[in-house]
């Protein structure tokens, strides 16, 4: 692993918690125990400050300004692109496109790449454990463009079913494999390198939905050799309103624009327009300047702590959480993959997921409940709704114990 991912500061969770102002808040008179970071993470002081600093000191529209404020804002905006490129170990900064969120990133690929590089009769494969964001855009592509959509099965443990995957690829029609890098429900990591090699050997490109994985683990797009990688800033301790699409340069260069308007243009007449090169071709209109700079600060923050240290911390939390939940009778954790991240989704015999969430909330503990934007997966796992506790770099073992006590109380109520 390269230097850039090394920890430069010893991991000390109580020090880290001081970086997050919200963690001192109270809810219903209780200390907030925030176990919903997989939905969206809290923001460290440095991210908030970076955004404030832009607005107070160096704000203007970017790129087209010939004045100082605009040059400074452009510098900061483009510096964030460099940070993302370094974070993913992209070959070039031009491979980083800024979007609103991972959902838009996937839609961009489905519209622009999907409707030009893929042809009617080609097939796209996704897995049974996709977030809606990595399922519905491909259904739309199927309906609008005549591409076939295939669903690769998962095992009951929540891992890729390789037999099923091989079967989907057997007829040679598959041109794109779009898969999560870590399930937001089951917590399973998918074996990205192996998947990419598998798909490439069969002539298909690969998109990885890195929304969850990017938060928990160092990602090296060159080592993975992945073609597209997407994630959202808000889950990586950054602001809302900013997402990332990484794609290999030669792929981006061949893609037509998706949204059109200012900034993404080379020249325009009343009759026609020609496009700027990537990444600008894909960034129409005024970008999320403040948010992009905020994301840059979030990446700096995460890098300073070190993805390896974060991963180790979260492994400890996940192990502790699994053990704790295993001790609760009638509780079922969805998925049992070997390689899993800090997301624990579960059902309880006595209490419905919504009741669990509400009753935990009364104790100051925030978990999510419902279908987790993965409705078909819920059906696949045989449940209609489930509760989910998810961990971040600021989560503590004590918070997981608080969850355990909270669940015990709920069992009491419904006993």
């Amino acid at each position, binding site marked *: 692993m390269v230097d850039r991912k090394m920890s430069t500061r010893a991991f000390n969770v109580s020090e880290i918690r001081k970086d997050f102002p919200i963690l001192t808040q109270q809810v*219903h*008179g209780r200390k907030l125990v925030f176990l919903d970071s997989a939905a969206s993470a809290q923001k460290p002081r440095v991210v908030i400050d970076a955004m404030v600093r832009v607005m107070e000191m160096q704000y203007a529209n970017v790129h087209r300004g010939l004045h100082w404020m605009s040059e400074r804002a452009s510098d900061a905006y483009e510096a964030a692109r460099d940070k993302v490129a370094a974070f993913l170990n992209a070959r070039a900064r031009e491979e980083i496109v800024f979007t609103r969120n991972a959902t838009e990133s996937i839609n961009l690929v489905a519209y622009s790449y999907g409707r030009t590089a893929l042809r009617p009769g080609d097939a796209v494969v996704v897995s049974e454990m996709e977030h809606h964001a990595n399922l519905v855009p491909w259904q739309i592509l199927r309906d609008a463009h005549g591409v076939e959509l295939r669903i690769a099965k998962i095992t009951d443990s929540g891992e890729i079913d390789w037999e099923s995957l091989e079967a989907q690829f057997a007829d040679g029609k598959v041109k794109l494999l779009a898969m999560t890098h870590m399930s937001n429900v089951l917590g399973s990591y998918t074996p990205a390198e192996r998947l990419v090699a598998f798909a490439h050997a069969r002539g298909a490109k690969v998109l990885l939905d890195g929304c969850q994985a990017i938060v928990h683990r160092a990602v090296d797009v060159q080592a993975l050799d992945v073609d597209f990688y997407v994630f959202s800033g808000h889950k990586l301790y950054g602001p809302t309103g900013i997402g990332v699409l990484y794609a290999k340069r030669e792929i981006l260069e061949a893609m037509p624009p998706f949204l059109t308007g200012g900034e993404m243009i080379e020249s325009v007449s009343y009759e026609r327009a020609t496009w700027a090169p990537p990444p600008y071709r894909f960034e129409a209109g005024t970008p999320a300047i403040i948010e992009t700079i905020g994301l840059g600060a979030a990446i700096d923050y995460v890098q300073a702590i070190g993805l390896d240290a974060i991963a180790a911390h979260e492994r400890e939390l996940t192990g502790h959480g699994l053990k704790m939940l295993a001790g609760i009778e009638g509780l079922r954790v969805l998925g049992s993959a070997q390689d899993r991240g800090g997301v624990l989704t579960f059902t309880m015999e006595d*209490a*419905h*997921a*919504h*009741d669990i969430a*509400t*009753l935990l*909330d*009364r*104790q100051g503990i925030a978990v999510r*409940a*419902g*279908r987790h934007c993965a*409705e078909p997966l*819920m059906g696949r796992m045989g449940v*209609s*709704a489930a509760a989910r506790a998810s961990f971040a770099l600021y989560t503590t073992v004590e918070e997981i114990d608080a969850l355990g006590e909270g669940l015990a*109380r709920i069992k*009491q*109520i*419904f006993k």
Partner: protein
Amino acid sequence: MSSTVQELYQALIVERSKAPRFAGRPEVFDAQGRGENAMCGDRVQVFWQRGGVVHHEAHGCAILTASADLMAQAVAGKSPAEVAAMRGAFEEVVTSGREDLALGDLNALAGVAQYRARRRCATLPWAALEEALREVQVHG
């Protein structure tokens, strides 16, 4: 156990969710309605018999089941017009959080007002019942 934890899930709610008194699909009924909360997949079916006898099949959280059951109890013998008025009053309770003495046991659900996302759990059975009663009105 702290009172804040329990206040929303009063004994009545827990009891009715675990052992509802009006659950089950009757052999015969004169109208039915259904409700589904697309957000979570919870669903409820309501069966109405002339004279104002109501049963339900609820698949979902404690709030949904208890609300369906307390509704069936509250509307027993009531006319469609009375049910409609009662529904309005009930929705006011779960929106404002202020109890309405006239509603009796239904007030157990007033705590839901604090949870916007849960209000729909409490009101879904009423929407299903309204659908059933619309059917009655159309077919005479």
